[in-house]
C-alpha cells in the first residue's frame, strides 16, 4: 500500500502513535516521566515541522471520503494547537516528572490530535469525534492533580461540556435530517433555510453547543471555575487550545454549511459578542484570584474574536473595495483574518499568562497566601522572580492590546474590519471594552511591579522559564513583524470565503 498520499496528515498520525506508545511505555517503565515529557515535546516539534511543510496549500486536499480537508485554514489552526501544546509540554517538564506523568503527556497529545481533527473536519461526524476526543482528554486533565479544587473544576467542566455536546449533536442531527448528509458542503447546497423553524432550531442548538466551548456569555459559567480550579498548565491548554477549537469548528460549520442563515447568526453573534466582551471585562475587574481574572479576560477576548462572525455575516457578499498589496480583500475576509490573527495572538498570550500563574503557584505555595493564585502573591514579583514578572508584563500589555504586540495587531485588524464593513457601533464598543480591560491588567501589573515584595527572591524552575521566554518572543515578534502572519491569515480566511 502506498501511504504517501496521506503525507499532509502525518502530523496527526505521528502524535496518535506517540500517545499510544507513551501509554504503553509508561506502564512498562517506572519513573519515566521526564523521558515521556521530552518524547512528547520532540513529537510535537516533529508534528509542527510536518504541518509546517504543508503550510501554504493553494487548493484544499480532501481525505477519507471527503471528510477531512487539509487547507490553509486547517493548517493555521493546527499550528496554533501544536504551539500551545508544545509550550504547555515544555512548562510541564518542570512539574510532571513522577508517577502518572506518562498519562498526563498522553492525554495532552490525544487532546491535541482531537483539536487537529476538528481543524480539518468538513463533515459533522468527524468534527464531533474530534471534538469529543479533545474534550474527554481535557476532562481528565482538568482533574489531574486530584485536589478537591481540581475535582470540582473537572466536574463542572465535564457536566457543562457534556450538555453542550448534547446540544451540538442534536443540532447536527436536525441538520442531517434536513439535508440528508453530514457533509458541510452538501448541507450548504441543501437550501435548509426553506425548512423554516426547524432550520432555526438547528442553528440555535449548534450555536449553543459551540458557544459553550468558546465560553461566550451566557454559556460561560463553567469557564472561571474551571480555569481557576484545574491545574494551571491545563488551564492554559483549555483557554488557549480547546477554546480555539470551538472557534475552528464554528467557523467551518457556520461559514460553510449554514452561510444561508447568516442574517440569523449574524444577529445572534452581534448580541453574544457585545454582551460577552462587556460582561467578561466587568467581571474581571472584581476578582482577586489571578487565574479568575485571566479566565474572565479570556471570556472577554472570546467576545472580541466573535466580532469576526458578525463582520462576516454582515459583510458577506460585499465586493472588496480595497487591494492589500495588490490583492483585493473583501470586508468579510478581513474580518475572518482579523479573528484568526486574534486567535493566534490570544492563544500565545493566554498560554504564556497561565504558564506564568503556574510558575508563581509552584514557587509560592509554601509560605505565602493560602490560595496560590491570590493576587497578593504577585506583590513585588519583579524582585522575587524577575523573568516571570517581565514576561507576564508583556502578556498583560499584549492582552490589553498595547502595541507592538501580537494582541495589538490582532485587535488592530479585527476592529478595523468592523469599520471596513460599517459596524462602527461594534468597533466603538470593542474599543471601549479594550480600555476597560486595562483596569484589571494594570492592577496585576501594579501588583507585580509597584508593590513591595511579598517574600524573598524565589528560584524560577527552568521548564517554565523556557516556555515563558519563547512565548514572549513570539508575542513580540508577531507584533513587530506582522507581515507574514497577516498574509497567512488572509490566505486561511480565503478558504472559507473565496472571492
Amino acid at each position, binding site marked *: 500500500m502506498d501511504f504517501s498520499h496521506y503525507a499532509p496528515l502525518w502530523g496527526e498520525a505521528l502524535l496518535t502513535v506517540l500517545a499510544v506508545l507513551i501509554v504503553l511505555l509508561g506502564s512498562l517503565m517506572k519513573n519515566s516521566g521526564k523521558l515521556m515529557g521530552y518524547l512528547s515535546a520532540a513529537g510535537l516539534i516533529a508534528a509542527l515541522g510536518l504541518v509546517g511543510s504543508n503550510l501554504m496549500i493553494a487548493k484544499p486536499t480532501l481525505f477519507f471520503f471527503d471528510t477531512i480537508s487539509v487547507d490553509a485554514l486547517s493548517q493555521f489552526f493546527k499550528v496554533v494547537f501544536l504551539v500551545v501544546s508544545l509550550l504547555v509540554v515544555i512548562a510541564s517538564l518542570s512539574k510532571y516528572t513522577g508517577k502518572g506523568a506518562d498519562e498526563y503527556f498522553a492525554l495532552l497529545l490525544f487532546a491535541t490530535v482531537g483539536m487537529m481533527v476538528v481543524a480539518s473536519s468538513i463533515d459533522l461526524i468527524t468534527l464531533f469525534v474530534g471534538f469529543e476526543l479533545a474534550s474527554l482528554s481535557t476532562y481528565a486533565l482538568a482533574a489531574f492533580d486530584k485536589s478537591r479544587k481540581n475535582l470540582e473544576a473537572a466536574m463542572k467542566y465535564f457536566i457543562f461540556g457534556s450538555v453542550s455536546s448534547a446540544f451540538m449533536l442534536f443540532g447536527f442531527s436536525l441538520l442531517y435530517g434536513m439535508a440528508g448528509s453530514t457533509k458541510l458542503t452538501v448541507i450548504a447546497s441543501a437550501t435548509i433555510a426553506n425548512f423554516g423553524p426547524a432550520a432555526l432550531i438547528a442553528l440555535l442548538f449548534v450555536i449553543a453547543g459551540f458557544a459553550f466551548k468558546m465560553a461566550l456569555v451566557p454559556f460561560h459559567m463553567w469557564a472561571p471555575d474551571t480555569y481557576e480550579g484545574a491545574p494551571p498548565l491545563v488551564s492554559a491548554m483549555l483557554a488557549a487550545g480547546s477554546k480555539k477549537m470551538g472557534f475552528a469548528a464554528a467557523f467551518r460549520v457556520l461559514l460553510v454549511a449554514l452561510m444561508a442563515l447568516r442574517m440569523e447568526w449574524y444577529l445572534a453573534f452581534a448580541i453574544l459578542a457585545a454582551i460577552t466582551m462587556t460582561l467578561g471585562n466587568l467581571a474581571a475587574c472584581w476578582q482577586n484570584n489571578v487565574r479568575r481574572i485571566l479566565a474572565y479576560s479570556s471570556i472577554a477576548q472570546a467576545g472580541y474574536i466573535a466580532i469576526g462572525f458578525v463582520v462576516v455575516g454582515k459583510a458577506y457578499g460585499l465586493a472588496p*473595495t*480595497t*487591494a*492589500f*498589496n*495588490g*490583492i*483585493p480583500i473583501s470586508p468579510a475576509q478581513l474580518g475572518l483574518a482579523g479573528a484568526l490573527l486574534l486567535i493566534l495572538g490570544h492563544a500565545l498570550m493566554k498560554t504564556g499568562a497561565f504558564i506564568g500563574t503556574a510558575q508563581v503557584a509552584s514557587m509560592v505555595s509554601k509560605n505565602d497566601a493560602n490560595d496560590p493564585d491570590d493576587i497578593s502573591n504577585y506583590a513585588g514579583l519583579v524582585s522575587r522572580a524577575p523573568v516571570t514578572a517581565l514576561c507576564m508584563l508583556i502578556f498583560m*500589555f499584549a492582552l490589553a492590546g*498595547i*502595541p*507592538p504586540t501580537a494582541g495589538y495587531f490582532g485587535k488592530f*485588524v479585527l*476592529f*478595523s474590519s468592523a*469599520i*471596513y464593513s460599517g459596524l*462602527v457601533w461594534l*468597533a*466603538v464598543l470593542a*474599543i*471601549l471594552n*479594550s*480600555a476597560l480591560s*486595562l*483596569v484589571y491588567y*494594570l*492592577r496585576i501589573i*501594579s501588583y507585580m*511591579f*509597584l508593590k513591595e515584595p511579598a517574600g524573598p527572591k524565589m528560584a524560577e524552575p527552568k521548564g517554565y522559564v523556557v516556555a515563558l521566554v519563547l512565548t514572549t518572543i513570539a508575542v513580540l515578534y508577531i507584533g513587530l513583524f*506582522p*507581515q507574514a502572519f*497577516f*498574509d497567512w491569515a*488572509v490566505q486561511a480566511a480565503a478558504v472559507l470565503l473565496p472571492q
Partner: protein
Amino acid sequence: MISNAISLMIAIPLLGAAVSFFAGSKAKFVALIASLIPLALSLQMYMEFDKTSKMMQFVESYNWVPSIGVKYTVGVDGIGFPLVLLSTIVSILVIIYSWGETKKPNQYFALLLLNEVGVLGVFTSLDFFLFYIYWEIVLIPMFFLIGSWGGPRRDYAAIKFFIYTHVASLVMLLAIFALYFTYQMPDGSRTFDMLTLLKATADKNIFPTSLLNIIFAGLLLGFLVKMPAFPFHTWLPDAHVEAPTAGSVVLAALLLKMGGYGLFRIILPILPHVDKAFVTIIAIIAVLSIIYGAFLALAQKDIKKLVAYSSVSHMGFVTLGAVAFTTMSIQGAMFQQFSHGIITCVLFMSAGTIQHVVGTRVIADLGGLADRMPKFAVIMMAGFMASLGLPGMSGFVAEFMVLTGSFATLPTYTMIVVFLSIVTTAAYHLWAMQKAMFGPILKKYMNVHDPHAYELFSMSMIIVLTLIFGLQPGLITGMMGTAATQVMQPVMTLSQMGVI
C-alpha cells in the same frame, strides 16, 4: 550628513534603556551617554536643517507591513524638528537632574530613556501605524515612573493617567481607521501614510464633510486630552501631584507637546475642510483652558499643583494660536510649545527641589527660603518670571506672537484672554514666589541649604536657554515660519516633495 539620523536617534536611547536596566547603579552613566548621543545628533541635524525648505527632511522610508500599506516612514520639518530638539535637550537635563536617584536607579533611568524613544518617535513618524505605536509606547514608562516613584496615591494616579489617555488614543485610532478605509490610492490599495491621507481630506468627493466632521472630532479628542485642554484636563493634576519630579518634567515638557504636535501636523490641515463650528468650539476650549487653568492655579495650596494648572493655561495658548489660523499665531503657538517645554522644566524642578530639601510643597508652610537657598532662589525666580511672560525671555515672545496673531481672526476671544488671564497669571506666579521664597525665614528652615550642583546645573541651563531663545527667538522660529505658512496650504506628500 549622517544617514538614518532619525532612526539612530531613536535606536540609541532604546538600546540605552536595555543596557541601563541591567547596569545596576551604573545606569546613570549609561543614561547620560545614551541621551548625549541623540542630543549631539539633533544638534548636527539643526546645523544641516534647511529652514527655508517646505520639504520633509532626513526622510527614511522602508516597507514594513506592505499587505496593509504600512511603511516605516520618518522625517522632520519645521513642525516636528523643534520638538525633536526639545526632547533631546529636556531628556538629558532630566537625567542630569536625577543624578542622585537611589531607588531602583537601573529601572528609573531605563524608563526615562524609553520615554525619550517614545516622544522622538511621535515627533518624527510620518505613518499613522508607526505614529500610533509610539503614541501608546509613551504611556508605559510614564505609568511606571508615576506608579513606582510617585507620592502616596501613586497607584491611583498611574492607572488614571494610563486609562484616561488610552481611551482618547483609542478614539483617535478609530478615526485613523476611518481615514484609512475611506481613501484609496490610485492603484486601489490602502495606505497609512500620514501626508497622503491628510492631503486626501481636502477632496470633497472622497471625504464628504459629514464624514470628515466625525473623523476630525475623533482625532481632535485624542490630541486635546493629551494637551490637556479643558474639560479633559482632570487627569493631569493627579498625575503631576503623584509623579516624581523627573516624571512631572517629562510629562509637562514632552508628553503634553505630543497633543500640540498633533494639532499642527494633523488637525490644522483638515480644519479648513470641516464644519466651521469646530473653529468656535476649539477657540472656546482654548480660551477656557487659558483662563480656567490660570484661576485654578491661583487657588492651589500645593506649589506643584499650581505649576500643573499653569501648564493647562499655557497649553491653551497653543490651541488658541493654532485655531486662529494666521501665520503669526501658528508660528507663535509652535514656539509656545517649545518655550513652555523648557520653562516648565524649571518650574517642576523647583517644586521637586523644594519638596526634597524642605519636605513640603504647601505654599502656606513655606517662607523665606531665599535666605538659605540663594542660588536656587535666583534660578527659580528666573523660571517663574519666564513663565509669567517677562519680556526678554522665550515665554513672552511666544505668547505675544499668539495674541498678536490671533487678534486678526479671533478678536473677541483674544481680548477675553488678554483681560482675564494676563493679570491672573502674573498674580499666581508672583504670589507663590513671594510666599515661598521671600519674606522672613521661618525658624524650622534655618538648616536648609542649596540643592546639589547637578540639580542647579540642569535648572540654570534651562534659564540660559530661555534667555537665548527670548532674545534670539529666530533660532527656533526661523524653522517655524516656513512650517506655519506650509500648514495653511494644502499638504504635500512625500512623493510630491520628491523625497521618496
